[in-house]
């Protein structure tokens, strides 16, 4: 149970981490496309125009950094589509300016766009928002789905722990009534079973967690070995691991409280 719950929690935490990373890397940035030079104003004029834009952007309030991506970087970006051959110098490719915004600072996109059009007509501004938005919606729904699964699994894990603890205590009904008859106080009897349940819950929980950790780590290793670029690294952060570490003590606590309540309840039926 802890095994399944751990996996589900791990999955949810992973989705959370990934979407957070997307958000962080994409939310505070813009890409500016400057259309390639037409026949007349080639060469020097064009690059002066791009430099002017970079300077304008650098001074714009709310902008952290603006960088003209060199031909090598652009080729690298286009390689997946255009192949190893790279981008021919003859092919008209727009100049790209990567802009990082100061997180949280006020920023007027409309005014900036107007200003840039004054320098270079036909400038395109991609603020990432649209596809980032789609991505985040996707991420959110995965997160919600994972959360529902986690809640379901945790609910059934709690039920299972409660049920197992109570079945265990039913078997020990004989012990409970004997201790009662020989003059043990209710609290003494409850304590014996509480401690036992706590230990069992902790042991079972740690075992489940170890299995889950092994599964998560080997799944991560396998994904890395396939060298895919699409799925982000599946390594859980330290924070996520510590959330997982909370599961065994939580299980133990549920078992302990169940044991206590069950024992006291069955004792209440004895005069």
């Amino acid at each position, binding site marked *: 149970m802890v095994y399944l719950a751990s996996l589900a929690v791990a999955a949810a935490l992973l989705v959370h981490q990934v979407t957070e990373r997307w958000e962080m890397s994409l939310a505070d940035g813009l890409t500016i496309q400057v259309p390639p030079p037409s026949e007349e104003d080639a060469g020097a004029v064009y690059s002066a125009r791009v430099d002017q834009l970079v300077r304008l952007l650098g001074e714009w309030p709310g902008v952290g950094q603006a960088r003209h991506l060199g031909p090598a970087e652009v080729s690298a970006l286009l390689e997946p589509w255009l192949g190893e051959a790279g981008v021919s110098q003859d092919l008209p490719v727009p100049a790209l300016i990567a802009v990082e915004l100061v997180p949280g600072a006020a920023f007027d996109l409309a005014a900036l766009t107007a200003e840039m059009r004054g320098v270079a007509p036909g400038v395109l501004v991609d603020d990432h928002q649209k596809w980032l938005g789609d991505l985040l919606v996707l991420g959110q729904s995965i997160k919600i789905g994972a959360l529902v699964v986690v809640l379901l699994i945790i609910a059934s894990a709690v039920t299972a722990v409660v049920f197992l603890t109570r079945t265990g205590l039913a078997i020990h009904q004989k012990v409970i009534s*004997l201790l009662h008859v*020989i003059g043990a106080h209710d609290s003494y009897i409850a304590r014996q079973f509480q401690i036992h349940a706590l230990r069992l819950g902790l042991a079972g929980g740690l075992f489940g967690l170890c299995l889950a950790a092994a599964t998560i780590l080997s799944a991560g290793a396998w994904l890395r070995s396939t060298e895919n670029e699409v799925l982000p690294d599946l390594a859980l952060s330290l924070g996520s691991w510590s959330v997982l570490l909370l599961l065994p003590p939580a299980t133990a606590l549920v078992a302990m409280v169940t044991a206590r309540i069950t024992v006291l309840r069955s004792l209440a039926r004895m005069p």
Partner: protein
Amino acid sequence: MVRFEEVSLRYDAGPEILSRVSFALDPGSFHFVTGPSGAGKSSLLRLLFLGLQPSDGRFSLFGRDVAGLNRDERALVRRRIGVVFQDFRLLDHLTVVENVALPLRVTGQKGQKIHEHVTELLSWVGLAEQLNAHPPTLSGGQQQRVAIARAVIARPSLLLADEPTGNVDDRLAVRLLYLFEELNKLGTTVLIATHNESLVARFSHPVLRLKDGSMTLERAAYATSSSTAGTAA
């Protein structure tokens, strides 16, 4: 030690098992409770170790009205009572020593002291060789002696035994009763429930006879100590 005043008992809505039963056991006395099967002997003992509450009447243990005791006080009263159950109620997952040590453990005692005390008692009942055995590996007679040892380990003021000779042959039955007499001489008040009339006939202790919910006292004159008992209402 024990005083019943018009105590009645019925299980739920069933018939009355005991009807206005009155009797008293003096400290240091030795009594039998007899009667046919189903007469209510076990039920009477259950009332005495506070495993049941009477549906009517009142009774006192060690000079205190039982109805006035709270839960913790009842636990303390139980510690002064040793019970030998008809089915022994030994815990199979514990060794003989651990079973016998239980009444001391629940009082918070622990360690070496308990162990010595328990081992000594077990040798006295002839179980020195079985200290670390588990109950299921013992014979009926051996289990019986473990149950008796557990009942007396905490030096109870009152010893209750339910059919303690039910699972053993006559010779062993008589020997077990000698054992109870030994304990009685040490000051323990003893009450033994049995339907074995021939066994009762071999001893001279007074007899509380249960029949149709009523109790009569027999052989009060034979009482070895100053035991008295009122007849049933």
